[in-house]
């Protein structure tokens, strides 16, 4: 009994000591008071050297925190409590956060570098006039494939995936809108289609894809494809870039029927305390040189037109990640379909998953 008491006392003591040490560390690094900026972003989605540079330029300490899904991020911001000055949600999350009043409007006079953004990526349906958001990175949904494992066969369209030769070769990303969207696109319907007949048709078409589908997985899809566990994967272009960096035998294609165009965007959530600093940070990231450095580090496509001039040609001329918009039929941004429709998409997706037995 005495031993047990000593043991618990020791654990308690150690916890207190660690708490004190972390507090003291934060203080010596100046993480207390007004001069901090909390950035809430996806993991490994910024060049750390840029954070150092920003701190040096402005004297503001940056606290970098990460999330791994829009839903988790929104839940944390909706709860309040924690301070987040800048966040980087995807476009459909922005519509939702706007609806729920979780965003603070941007002051464009404090963001002079906004002019460097390609106008194509401004004023989009999810945020007209960019009142709340500024694009950070963008990309597509497409097909990563391994020509070696397919005997040199080329994939160019969604409909190629229904080829009976591809039995048990396809990995799908575990996302209702991506998978149902693939079915819709293969039938030349819009990704934002809300016609239930069209959606049912898409689901029936997807059911015929089942023999070719090896698995429906999450983030592991990157590792599985790089390890050649399957020849084909339906993924976001950013993941594709990572996969190809790991295994250069793989190739990426945006299917010719059309696909999804997605954006991650910088916003100031309502939890912000340092709104002035948040504008400074957003403007800093919009600076062409910084944007170029960041895009090279992260490997995603930057919406910053001027930044392309500072990047190596082999990146900016790679049609897979900087496609010619005229050559691809229709790239659509996801619209916020409303809760009921989204639930219906998910219901169909669940049925598709169940059908696989």
């Amino acid at each position, binding site marked *: 009994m005495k031993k047990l008491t000593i043991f618990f006392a020791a654990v308690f003591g150690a916890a207190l000591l660690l708490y004190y040490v972390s507090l003291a560390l934060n203080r010596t690094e100046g993480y207390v008071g007004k001069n901090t900026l909390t950035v809430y972003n996806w993991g490994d989605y910024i060049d750390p050297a840029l954070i150092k540079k920003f701190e040096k330029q402005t004297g503001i300490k940056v606290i970098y925190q990460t999330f791994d*899904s829009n*839903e*988790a991020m929104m839940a944390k911001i909706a709860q309040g409590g924690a301070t987040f000055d800048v966040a980087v949600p995807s476009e459909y999350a922005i519509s939702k956060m706007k609806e729920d009043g979780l965003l603070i409007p941007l002051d464009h006079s404090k963001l002079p570098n906004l002019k460097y953004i390609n106008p194509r990526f401004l004023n989009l349906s999810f945020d007209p006039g960019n009142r709340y958001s500024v694009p950070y990175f963008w990309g597509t949904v497409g097909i990563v494939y391994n020509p070696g494992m397919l005997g040199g066969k080329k994939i160019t369209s969604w409909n190629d995936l229904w080829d009976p030769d591809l039995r*048990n070769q396809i*990995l799908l990303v*575990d996302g*209702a809108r991506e998978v149902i969207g693939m079915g819709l696109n293969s039938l030349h319907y819009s990704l934002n289609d809300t016609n239930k007949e069209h959606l049912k048709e898409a689901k029936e078409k997807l059911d015929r894809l089942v023999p070719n589908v*090896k*698995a*429906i*997985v*999450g983030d*592991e899809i990157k*590792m*599985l494809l790089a*390890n*050649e*566990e399957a020849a084909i994967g339906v993924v976001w272009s950013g993941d594709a870039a990572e996969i190809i960096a790991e295994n250069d035998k793989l190739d990426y294609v945006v299917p010719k029927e059309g696909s999804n165009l997605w954006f991650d965007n910088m916003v100031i959530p309502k939890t912000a305390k340092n709104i002035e600093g948040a504008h400074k940070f957003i403007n800093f990231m919009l600076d062409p040189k910084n944007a170029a450095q960041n895009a090279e580090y992260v490997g995603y496509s930057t919406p910053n037109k001027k930044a392309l001039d500072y990047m190596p040609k082999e990146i900016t001329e790679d049609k897979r990640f900087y496609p010619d918009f005229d050559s691809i039929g229709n790239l659509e941004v996801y619209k916020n379909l409303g*809760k*009921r429709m*989204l*639930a219906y998409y*998910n*219901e169909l997706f*669940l*049925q598709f*998953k*169940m059908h*696989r*037995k």
Partner: protein
Amino acid sequence: MKTSIRNVYLLPYVVWIGIFVVAPILLIVYYSFFDIEGKWTLSNYKMFFTPIYLKMAASSVWYALLVTFFSLLIAYPAAYALTKTKHKQLWLLFLILPTWVNLLLKVYAFLGIFGTYGLANAILAAVGIGPKQILFTDFSFVFVSVYIFIPFMLLPIFNALEELNPSLVDAARDLGASAWTTFRRVVFPLTLDGVKAGCQAVFIPSLSLFMITRLIAGNRVITLGTAIEEHFLVTQNWGMGSTIAVFLIIAMAAVVAVTGNRKRG
């Protein structure tokens, strides 16, 4: 006087149970009566009795039964053998050791082992069977689940066997029972409580497994846990998610009732 002091001691426990057990269950039941737009409805329950969810419920129960059965099949003889060894606490420690490693890490390790170029296929190729698809099959799902749940089955059975008075076994043998009869008529009935506890500890959590279904079974196995996760995180349809959770709670209560102690009856 005495009872009031005892009640004071009970207070932290009651508060704990109230906040972390009773309140959440009531909240789940409460939420299950609301639709996605926050209107009061019974439609979630109607929805549950459609073929999709019934099929999902049936497959959850089926896989949970499989996992429980194989865990028991492996854990009982293992526990029995353990009680006969010299350094049983040490051997027990080795069998329990995997629970010290994070669950996600263990599951990820199996992704590597069962992969097309993984250890399992290398062995199959070496013995001349040739590579097979192991990952994303029912087999891999049940295998990994059993691997993860074995310690939870093993411990209660081991404890029950330890408590068994050895003179009872000796008596049975002295009276002429064969080893098999002794096991069937004496050892097994006396350790049945351990088996029941183990089955509960395995069956109940495996009903709502969701991470392994995606990582190891590639969503080929869909359990109610998968649906709950999707409704809460993606669709944000808390009502439907809660409704499924209500049925899981009912199923678990039924399991506890069936496997519970009948001595008092």
